[in-house]
């Protein structure tokens, strides 16, 4: 029996109970139903081991997370991590201490990084418990979703 494993995945990362940390999952909610069924959508809390497992056998991975780097909230960072490591400012100030940056670098060290691996990091304003997304971050959701749809359209176009 062969199991069909999706080769493309969007992973929304974060704790939905912690303010802007929910942004990754919120983008997923916007994407549901608007991407081909062959593209997997997954939610993760950001723990590195679980993220690493998600990347196994994947050809194109898009990871969406909150970030704090000092730019205005709602700013969208696009980082091609297949080409280079996450910049220190992003890596060092993510709320996921042992998380996304480690998962990517562990995957690279172990030779498991997908050939296409892109991080969308949305600048956060607040991680207050049970708070809703801050207005600037919520306002960025449609654009992040649109850019991801465009990424997959480009990938398909290249085939």
């Amino acid at each position, binding site marked *: 029996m062969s199991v069909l494993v999706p080769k493309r995945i969007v992973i929304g990362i974060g704790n939905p109970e912690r303010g802007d940390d929910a942004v990754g999952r919120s983008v997923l909610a916007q994407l549901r139903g608007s991407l081909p069924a062959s593209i997997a959508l997954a939610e993760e809390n950001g723990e590195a081991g679980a993220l690493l*497992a998600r990347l196994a056998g994947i050809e194109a991975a898009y990871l969406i997370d909150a970030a704090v780097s000092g730019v205005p909230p709602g700013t969208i960072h696009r980082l091609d991590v297949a080409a280079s490591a996450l910049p220190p400012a992003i890596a060092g100030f993510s*709320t996921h201490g042992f998380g996304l940056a480690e998962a990517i670098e562990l995957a690279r060290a172990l030779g498991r990084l997908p050939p296409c691996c892109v991080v969308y990091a949305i600048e956060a304003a607040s991680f207050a418990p049970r708070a809703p997304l801050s207005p600037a971050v919520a306002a960025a959701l449609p654009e992040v979703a649109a850019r991801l749809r465009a990424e997959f359209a480009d990938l398909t176009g290249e085939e």
Partner: protein
Amino acid sequence: MTTKTIKVNYLARVEGEGGLRVVVRNGVVTKAELSIFEPPRFFEAFLRGRAFSEAPDITARICGICPVAYQMSAVHAMEDALGVRVTGALRALRRLLYCGEWIESHALHIYLLHAPDFLGYAGAVDMAREHRALVETGLGLKQAGNAILTLLGGREVHPINVRVGGFYRMPSRRELAPLAERLERAREAALATVRWAAGLDFPERRHDYHFVALRHAAEYPFNEGRIVSSRGLDLSPAEFEDSFEEDHVERSTALHAHLKADGSSYLVGPLARYSLNFDRLSPLAQAAAREAGLGATCANPFQSIVVRAVEVLYACDEALRIIAAYEEPDHPSIPLTPRAGIGHAATEAPRGLLYHRYRLTEDGAIAEARIVPPTSQNQASIEADLKNFVGGWLDLPEEELRHRCEQTVRNYDPCISCSTHFLRLELDRG
């Protein structure tokens, strides 16, 4: 007078943020303070007014690493309040679920957080470049734990299949079969982990801890038991607050737990569990512990990596025993009738004793919630370790001294330590 302040600030994973401050005056450690952000405090407020049945799902969100522990303490406390008991296969499956969380959490800590400390790397990524097989072993072991959580919990992160009174859905014997094959391989890997960890170089540091853990008549404790201690305490979970209390600490949102009688600190977690329950480990786990050079008790916090490995081995062994004996029950849960009451429970999270108390109104709404997580209970012991140990390391180069401080905190696997590789050092020489 020279003053040296070792200050380490860090933003942790979302389940906790914190910092560490050690003050040294004239070569003597005068202060060691660990500040952490503690989400359970906020969740206690969110729980008020919610239905008793919502507590497992809500509390599972408190910690991304140990959702099962929060769920288990919640369901047992609710069942205590409602006057019901879950027995037989349902009870066994809860133990199986807990095995999954211990394997997953301990494997993560052993291989990705603790191992780099002993092998001389800044973190798991650096270590992976030169010890690829070691990291692969750790990740494989962790995935075996995740496989249990996925099958029983419905999801790896924040399992959703758990409910007060049992489960929403039970696995069939057939579904459990592939899990058993995987766990047999994991048990081999766990045994190898104990042997590998035993060969690491441990600082000779010991402390006369007051160990506190659950103890059950026949089992190594997960969900059930008396709260016992190495100094003679023997309480039911309902008596927890008679003997232990928490104080507010100015510098953080966390509460520090102490013994009510004399304000002294105590220790929960792997060292305490092991030292109070060695005779309840499976023969295989006992033999591996002996072979690793551990006695029936262990008071060197740096050896907690070996004790965690022994607990992973036990959890694999116990999971296989449960699967072999499993008969699918007729119903996935037992009937419940809301009523007014108070319920208490203590279960063993990977990091130690996790206490929940709920007061319910007649219609089953939560009127009051109390959650005492293991990290707040261990905070005083972590600070005591820093005070006791750092004095002997002051001649070390700055970087190494900082690393030893981090490692001392990391021994405990507090929720905050998930991020300690992002620690930053500020040195204040006064």
